[in-house]
């Protein structure tokens, strides 16, 4: 497979101390983000699934991407889910998603709504590809994307996770 055909790259940055955070607070923050148009994407609405265990948490829905406090596998993190296709290469798309996620983390940590308790561990990431046709969670995809991931996250440990039915997903531990 050609890594440059891969779209819809997602990046999740984990919260350092999940117990210190109440993600209900994110609802108000995300509404304010829409009002203040703080992101480059067009922001549309906020939806929340706090009632669903290990679910998608609180989402800020955008046209080109969603931002969310994701609770999947009971691991709280900021997830950047790129929906719209991007020009460029795998490297540039990964960089876009990674930078968007980190920018959102920076902004969230400064939000008064979290009372200064929200901190992200920027060294622990997950990268997904949210498209089973372009990047199934197979050995072939792994072999094609591993060098690209290792190039981008130079010096990091990159491990493939999940079962074949899952999205292609890697855990990244930055040095």
């Amino acid at each position: 497979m050609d890594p440059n055909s891969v779209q819809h790259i997602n990046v999740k940055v984990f919260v350092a101390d999940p117990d210190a955070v109440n993600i209900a607070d994110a609802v108000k923050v995300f509404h304010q983000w829409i009002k203040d148009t703080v992101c480059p994407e067009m922001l549309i609405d906020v939806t929340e699934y706090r009632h669903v265990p290990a679910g998608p948490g609180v989402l800020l829905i955008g046209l080109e991407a969603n931002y969310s406090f994701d609770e999947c596998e009971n691991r709280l993190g900021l997830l950047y889910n790129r929906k719209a296709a991007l020009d460029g290469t795998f490297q540039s798309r990964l960089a876009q998603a990674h930078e968007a996620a980190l920018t959102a983390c920076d902004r969230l940590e400064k939000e008064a709504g979290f009372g200064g308790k929200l901190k992200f561990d920027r060294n622990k990431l997950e990268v997904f590809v949210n498209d089973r046709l372009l990047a199934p969670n197979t050995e072939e995809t792994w072999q094609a994307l591993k060098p690209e991931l290792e190039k981008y996250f130079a010096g990091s440990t990159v491990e493939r996770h999940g079962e074949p039915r899952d999205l292609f997903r890697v855990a990244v531990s930055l040095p």
Partner: protein
Amino acid sequence: MRPSNSQWKARLGDSVPENLSAEIDVFENEIALRKQGKIEDRIFAETRLRRGAYGQRYDNGQRSDGTTTRTLNYPDVPTKGPNTLWDAPGMQRIKIPFGGLNAAQLEMLADLCEEYSDGIAHITTRQDVQLHFIHIEDTPTIMRRLASVGITTREACGNSVRNVTACPIAGVCRTQTFDVTPYAKAIAYFMLGHPDAQAFGRKFKIAFSGCAHEACGLVRLHDFGAIAVTREENGKTRRGFELWVGGGLGPVPQQARLYDEFVPEEEILPICQAIARVFARLGEKKNRNTARLKFLVSKLGIEEFKRLVIEERAILTDDPRWTSYLKEAHVHEEQPLKPAALLQIDPARPAARSTSRSSDFDKWHRINVYQQRQQGYATVTVALPLGDITATQLRKLADISRTYVKETIRSTVEQNLVLRWVSEADLPALYADLKAAELALPFAETIVDVSSCPGTDTCKLGISASRGLAGELRERLAAQNAETDEVIGGLRIKVSGCFNSCGQHHVADLGFYGVSRKKGNYVVPHFQVLLGGEWQNNAGTYGLAIGAVPSKRIPETVDRITTRFRTERLTSETFQAFIKRIGKAECKKMIDDFTAIPSHDDDPSFYSDWGDPREFSIGDIGVGECAGEVIFPIDFELVACEREVFEAQLQLEAGNVEKAARMAYDAMLHGAQALLKFRFMVAPDSPDKIVEDFRTSFYDTEIFFDPFVKGKFAQDFFRAHEQATLANQPRTAETTHQLIEEAQLFIEACYSTHARMTATPAKVTA
């Protein structure tokens, strides 16, 4: 929207049944045509609705941030319906006939909600599944992937026969007369796309129930509700249905009327077809507020309605599908995966009990497990908070359904899923697996298991946050362990975001629907409170509205009402009997002090809704798409003609000259046929006869004449017909190109003719 959309069709190949594949291709072409502005937006709206692609809140590009309504700057491309922007996220409703699902279907839903939606599949109050925040251009791929596992979204919305619902324990129910599953399935596929069900003024809902006294089928709130009954005739037991018609909720709730105490099983499909024809012919078309079947039944009276149906039934042409499924229906029974075995209960060995069975298990077992009529088997309800399940949970549930049962899963109108045919001995292990998937919430079908429509979360019509309130009530009631309360544990709470009743608030013990009230310069979210609706007896009675309470005071209202019931009810008195006994005035008195609204300065929290910190506004309410505008069959037929012309162009581009010419000619023929059908209700099928009738009725009369070129477009059609009937007339790319152009103009002329025929004459003033 997604680059992979163009590749899925080839990837799925033959796994998509041919008929569904063709339908989806048609829809994909209609999307392309709409993008080119070649289909009117109101027609495209009904087209997509009939494929389950629904609008969503803010899709008009306006959104209130609490103080100001702001414009969402979507790209400037054609709309996907009146005032509905192309790129605005929408909802995809997925029909699940009688709620029946298998493991592969759960896995597919998991993939789709993850890739195209927000990671959640939502079970509705009519056993459908909904995915939200979907882009319209992703819908054909979603439909193809669903079709590859045997699911169609056709007629999930729009003025059509909606999902056919049925009791989720049909076939395993201890009190059923017989299993209604095969009948629900047969009618669902018989009516799907049926020509007699394409010209309704509004939707048409069908439900089946195995017995009269339980709730499962909710027959009496449906347009067509059938309850299984039997009759002894000549020493033989004969199956049939007690048939109820014209029920519905919404702003004018009406209980269904008894059509017949016994419709023999072989007549249930033809009677449904006959009712559909009467509804299509006589139902209201212009005013959608009075277009449901219930209004027609009320207007005509049940006796006259029945007379008309019988008359219609008598002229129906026999259809083998009416009865071909019956033989199978009598022997139909799902099969278990494991042998029947009883759950071992040994109170004499508490040590053993503590290892295999915890008190958590016991509670779950008491509440979520139903002992089937087949000894040694149980049906387990997987309670889903607000009907929501994640992609990960769907996959785990698929695995569980393969381990313990033969993938016998159903969705329920209480927004849950059930696993049928669990060997009772497996219950502890199943519980452990469900718990690991966070799917063992022990409150199925109790007061904690609050149902809700999407409300202001995603619905264009929502007034108040029904899901926000439902979530709040669920959390508070669970914290009180209300599900185990002997008196109130079995009560039902149902919440709708507005009077349209998608949350089925009328048939709950405690029902709520969203309204608003003005206080000074502010609007305050409220819920109207309804008490004493009956869930049992197939939605036997509708609740009594007693007054509107600010949203933020609904939890206290629930506490007060349930506490009073707990303390003042007579022995064994039901909630309905209690409400009736104390009377409406007393009920209203109970909530009076909650109706006061503090000033904004004193308590601003009253001025925002549950789960939504924005200052409350009703400015986001849009125009509903519960059904689109009333579109006559000719509208669809002409769109189909246009699509044929479009496909002819594609064929020509691909070098298939003969095929392209044939398609262009066919498009003209079908346009002429559509006009004939519109004018005379019927039209011939033979090309010669179509041309002859068209010439007499539209050309000779000059009805088809264009004000400028007069009869040219009709003459093009006549010439195309002559050439089509001549043998060995080779086509060139050039002549075919010209024919396609003529076909396009001919279809335009059909549209114009139809518009002239239906135009309201201008008023002449002196």
